[in-house]
């Protein structure tokens, strides 16, 4: 289609569109105006009447209602078509129809909810042509009736007539604009396109090789400018053509010259290619050597670029890579099977450190190997520098040092054990020495005190004899000595001495006995360590014996329950010492039950359960009491020498220490306990069967 038609059509269409929109908007406004008017002014009118007659409606005063609505109708004759008032039963209380009431009235809205204040209905029927406004008549919140007021549509339309006229005028103006605008557009586009047509013709001429056609456009607008530029272009094309012809001739000469020099360069190139091949061979050789050296390492070795990609890796690393991912190319993918670089606090990336510090680093990492074992890996990373001293790459080796680590730890543990043993040994020696030194004096202090106590009784008997004699003498002779005897008694405080001296000596003896007990215990402890051969012994038998021996210790505190395995094998041990352990544990159990009774102020019999069983390659013995249990703060001191919670006279603080010594250090067994405060404690020990 020609441009002039296109332009005309577009302009024509635009004007038409504008006119239609204008018309639509305006006529919409007319509608809105009418609705607004109905909703405000006319509704208010209805509500006014409704509130004025609400009492009349309530009281059912038909005649007054009718009079009132006729008055309203007459006041606004043009506007109001009718007024109808109904009561709450929808019965008509009054209306303004002169003839029969039209049926539509009975179909109108009559009931309203509390939030509704009006309802507008349109009755298009020919006779009426009205908007019906229904308004509830209310007293307080109760609807007592409904008022319908018919507003003539004609009247309402009249109020909007100026706007309506304006709308019509706009329509006419619109049509006029379309016609005039269309014509103008046609004229204008013809004028523009005329010049364009001329230019087109000229272009055709040039394409046929005719450069001599002259242009005759003289308008001073953009088309004129175009024509001038066009003429200039034609001139330039003419000149260019001439230069091109001259240039073509020169070109052939130039080509033959260039061909010659090219052949010479080709020869030189051939020579340098040979040299390059030699160099390449050298390089390949070096590369091979490097690879051999690399692969000699039995741990993964990488050369890594700054962007984590792997420049090179040895065979071990290659295996690892195929194991993990196949053809991955960054160090973290290959070695950690991760998608991002390492970098957390406990998983540092050696690459970052090396590039930052420009120094070799060694980092330890914990890794799980393919079978899920924890391995300690030492990562050694070394920087590779360029000529300027910048780090360009990094060599990274992963060495599994788990075994070395374990060995070091084992060594440390052994050293600690040895230290402990030394300590114990020196305590033992000390104890033995002290025991020996104390034992002898204690022996004779005890003996002498016993002797003094026994002798004292004889002395008292002797004095008693003298007293009897004196009394007899007095009876027989009547010599008065009674008074002097009494004086002597009082001076010496005889009665008191007779009472207290034996007691104090007995207390001394008790004290001495306690001291010698401790000393004996220490001696026993120091004697543990004799190197006689162990004998195969029946542990059940040992338990029975020990229970019998210790009966005095537990019979007032507890019942014994036994659960001894009849299949118990004989165990190699020093039976005397094991009996000592059993005895200590049973006595402790009895004491724990006694202590519990004391704190609870009860005298209940507790239970000591003794069990033996087979536990793999060991025999396990358990002694359970229903005593106090062991407070948490004491639990780790339990096997220490001299630790006791018992009263001074009751415990030496050696029992469990000795038990530990015997079971663990002498027999290579184990001893431990389970306890709950207030419920009881179980001590276990195990001995190896072979």
């Amino acid at each position: 289609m020609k441009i002039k038609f296109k332009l005309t059509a577009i302009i024509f269409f635009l004007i038409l569109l504008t006119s239609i929109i204008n018309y639509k908007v305006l006529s919409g406004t007319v509608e809105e105006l009418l609705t607004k008017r109905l909703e405000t002014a006319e509704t208010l009118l209805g509500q006014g009447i409704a509130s004025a007659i609400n009492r009349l409606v309530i009281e059912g005063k038909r005649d007054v209602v009718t009079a009132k609505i006729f008055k309203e109708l007459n006041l606004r004759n043009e506007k109001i078509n009718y007024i109808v008032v109904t009561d709450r039963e929808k019965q008509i209380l009054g209306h303004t129809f002169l003839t029969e009431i039209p049926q539509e009235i009975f179909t109108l809205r009559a009931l309203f909810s509390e939030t509704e204040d009006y309802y507008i209905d349109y009755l298009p029927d020919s006779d009426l042509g009205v908007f019906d406004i229904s308004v509830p008549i209310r007293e307080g919140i109760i609807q007592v009736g409904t008022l319908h007021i018919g507003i003539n549509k004609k009247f309402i339309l009249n109020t909007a007539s100026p706007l309506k006229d304006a709308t019509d005028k706009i329509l006419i103006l619109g049509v006029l604009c379309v016609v005039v605008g269309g014509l103008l557009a046609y004229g204008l586009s013809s004028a523009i396109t005329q010049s364009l047509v001329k230019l087109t013709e000229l272009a055709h001429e040039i394409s046929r090789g005719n450069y001599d056609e002259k242009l005759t456009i003289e308008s001073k607008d953009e088309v004129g400018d175009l024509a001038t530029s066009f003429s200039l272009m034609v001139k330039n094309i003419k000149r260019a053509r001439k230069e091109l012809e001259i240039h073509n001739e020169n070109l052939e000469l130039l080509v033959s010259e260039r061909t010659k020099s090219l052949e010479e360069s080709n020869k030189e190139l051939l020579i340098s290619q040979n040299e390059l091949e030699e160099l390449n061979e050298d390089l390949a050789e070096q590369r091979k050597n490097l690879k051999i050296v690399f692969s000699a390492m039995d741990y993964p070795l990488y050369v890594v670029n700054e962007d984590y990609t792997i420049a090179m890796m040895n065979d071990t690393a290659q295996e690892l890579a195929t194991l993990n991912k196949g053809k991955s190319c960054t160090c973290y993918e290959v070695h950690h099977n991760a998608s991002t670089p390492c970098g957390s606090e406990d998983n540092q990336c050696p690459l970052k450190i090396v590039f930052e510090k420009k120094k070799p680093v060694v980092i330890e990492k914990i890794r799980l190997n393919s079978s899920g074992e924890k391995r300690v890996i030492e990562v050694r990373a070394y920087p590779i520098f360029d000529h300027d001293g910048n780090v360009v790459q990094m060599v990274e080796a992963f060495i599994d040092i788990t075994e070395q680590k374990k060995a070091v730890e084992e060594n440390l543990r052994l050293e600690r054990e040895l230290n402990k043993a030394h300590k114990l040994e020196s305590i033992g020696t000390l104890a033995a020495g002290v025991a020996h030194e104390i034992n002898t004096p204690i022996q004779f202090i005890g003996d002498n005190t016993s002797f003094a106590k026994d002798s004292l009784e004889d002395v008292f008997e002797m004095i008693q004899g003298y007293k009897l004699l004196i009394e007899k003498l007095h009876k027989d002779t009547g010599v008065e000595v009674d008074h002097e005897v009494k004086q002597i008694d009082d001076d010496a405080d005889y009665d008191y001495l007779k009472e207290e001296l034996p007691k104090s000596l007995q207390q001394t003896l008790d004290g001495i006995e306690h001291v010698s007990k401790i000393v004996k215990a220490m001696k026993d402890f120091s004697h543990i360590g004799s190197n006689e051969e162990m004998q195969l012994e029946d542990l059940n038998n040992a338990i029975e014996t020990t229970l019998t021996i210790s009966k005095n210790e537990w019979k007032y505190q507890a019942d014994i329950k036994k659960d001894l395995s009849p299949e118990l094998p004989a165990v190699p041990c020093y039976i005397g010492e094991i009996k000592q352990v059993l005895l200590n544990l049973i006595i402790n159990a009895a004491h724990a039950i006694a202590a519990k009774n004391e704190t609870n102020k009860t005298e209940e019999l507790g239970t000591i359960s003794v069990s033996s069983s087979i536990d793999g390659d060991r025999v396990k013995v358990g002694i359970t009491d229903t005593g106090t249990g062991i407070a948490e703060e004491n639990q780790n001191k339990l096997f220490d020498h001299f630790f006791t919670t018992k009263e001074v006279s009751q415990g030496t603080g050696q029992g469990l220490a000795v038990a530990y010594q015997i079971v663990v250090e002498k027999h290579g067994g184990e001893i431990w306990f389970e306890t709950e405060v207030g419920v009881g404690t179980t001590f276990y020990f195990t001995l190896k069967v072979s």
Partner: protein
Amino acid sequence: MRLFSLLFLLICHLLLISCDSHRDRIEVEQTFGVTESTITLGSSAALTGHAGFLGTEYLRGAQLYFNEINTAGGVHGREILVTAYDDSYNPVKTIANTQRLISEDKVFALFNYVGTPTSVAVKPTIKAANIPIFGFFTGAESLRYPVESNFFHLRDSYYAEAEGAVHYFVDLKDLNKVGVLYQDDAFGLAVLKGIQLALRERGLEPVVTDTYERGSLDLGDSLEWIFSKPVDVVLMVGTYEPLAKFIKEAHDMGQDPYFSTVSFVGSSAFSYELTEVQKISSNKYEKIMVTQVVPWPFSQSNPSALEYVALSSKYFPDDAPNYVAFEGFLNAKVVVEALRRTGSKLTRKKFLSTLSTIKSYDIGIEKKVSFSATSHQGLKGIYYSQLKESKWFETFTPVEVVE
């Protein structure tokens, strides 16, 4: 095209700048009605006319408390003064008075307004001025909800009084035929709505209603209309004179239903009108009731009642203590407490925010005063009072009738 977008940006920018300057404008609160030594409150109330008793007593009740406070040195060293104008229960005058109080007298706050039509009419003016107003001698719902930031009430609403009356007659006494006579204005309508709502809750409606013109004493038509239906109870909404006359004429017609009205009637004026002017026979006393929003002023158990009676005989020895003045007195008490809590640097804004934070404040009657953001009504609940031999409306505790 580029030019257009540039222009558009420029316009947007200008709009933004203008918004900013609005925001930056600093609000300066001027403190009106407060000097070093005084705080001035303003009131418009009916001091003359057929409701004159109400306004006079309402303000006197407050005044005697202020007198006592002022004698003791005032609030933070400031005396409380009240500027009051008479509006004769005429809404037009109320508006004029209020405008004068706000813009000419420049009082600190408004206080103790009397009546529904008056208060409802002046509400937009007070709301626009955003001046604090405390205490209305009306229970109109439209002054309470929606809650306005500067409106505060002490007494419970007419809806509560209507609900109370309906509860008493319908629930407790089993009387279902309720007639309503109400003053033909906003006051009458406000209580009528309360009664209709309370009855509707119980599935009922008033059996008959009628209105009478405010101030009119010609109630012949209403009598005829109301008693054209059988009624057990007539709930009345109005002022003491016409209501007393209505009761008397009903008795003369041989009608003997229960009569009840709301606190606005002014109980002592009402009782005087009934016993001394209309001379109702005393055996009909017990069927006349008024719902109250404050307790019996002669109650011996309420410290505030004792205080009020003592101060009343001190400052206004000629006035008999009454419910209206007692309510005014309690209003003053809350205002003084709020002023005290606001502190010496007094502004309207601070005063309002202090008021709304008062919680469970003991004003010396059993109930406590509380305000919140969603309720600006300090007291909740009503009292029942009955005309007694003493010619007083005395409060009583209703008991359910057991058949």
